[in-house]
């Protein structure tokens, strides 16, 4: 499984090749890309911070869970860090499986879980300021994570 947190440009072809399988009839690829606007403000660029070791660990756990849950042949999850310009991909999720229905469900599920659980943060930079985004999709705001240690 291709799992990577990296400052380098995400390579779609590499991710697709990594999930190739003779039993796969469907490959779905999701790219999260930097948009020029958010909540009505013009975005100049984004800056991503990450806890790379833990981010890769959580991404791998989620990819394994998706594989079991949706009967995937394979999955790949890559997240980029550092400064990203408009149009660049910050997140790449690719899955392969027998049929198309599961490919859409699995990719959508993975993207949702990644946004809740993977320790990565974006800072929006505007012409007149900047702010770290503290995600409304984070489980820290929405809910406690399953399987926490401690009482």
């Amino acid at each position, binding site marked *: 499984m291709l799992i990577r947190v990296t400052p380098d440009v995400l390579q779609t072809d590499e991710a697709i090749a990594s999930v190739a399988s003779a039993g796969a009839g469907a490959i779905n690829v999701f790219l*999260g890309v930097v948009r020029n606007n958010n909540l009505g403000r013009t975005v100049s660029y984004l800056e*991503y*911070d*990450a*806890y790379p*070791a*833990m*981010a890769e*660990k959580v991404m791998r756990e989620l990819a394994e869970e998706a594989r079991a849950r949706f009967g995937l042949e394979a999955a790949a999850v890559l*997240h980029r860090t550092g400064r990203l310009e408009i149009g660049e991909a*910050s*997140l790449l999720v690719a899955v392969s499986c027998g049929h198309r229905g599961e490919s859409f469900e699995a990719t959508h599920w993975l*993207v949702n879980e*990644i*946004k*809740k*659980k*993977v*320790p*990565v*943060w*974006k*800072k929006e930079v505007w012409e007149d300021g900047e702010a*770290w*985004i*503290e*995600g*409304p*999709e*984070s*489980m*820290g*705001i929405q809910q406690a*994570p399953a399987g*926490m*240690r*401690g*009482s």
Partner: protein
Amino acid sequence: MTVLFFASVAQKAGVRSLALALEPGDTVARVRDRVVARFPQLESSLPTLMYALNEEYVRESAEVPAGATLALIPPVSGG
């Protein structure tokens, strides 16, 4: 043990990591309180802060083992 800071928390603290001496019976909450005593500007982050010990999410009641890495995790916003 080591404490890691990220994103808005790192920006407020002005550091990305801190070495701390562990005290007997230390929990995440106790270590976190010593960090906040040192960086009072982190107080406002507490309501939404999460914690990871050795790369695993934990509750603040979790005990901190010797040599552990504690990460202060503001609400994530990747993707």
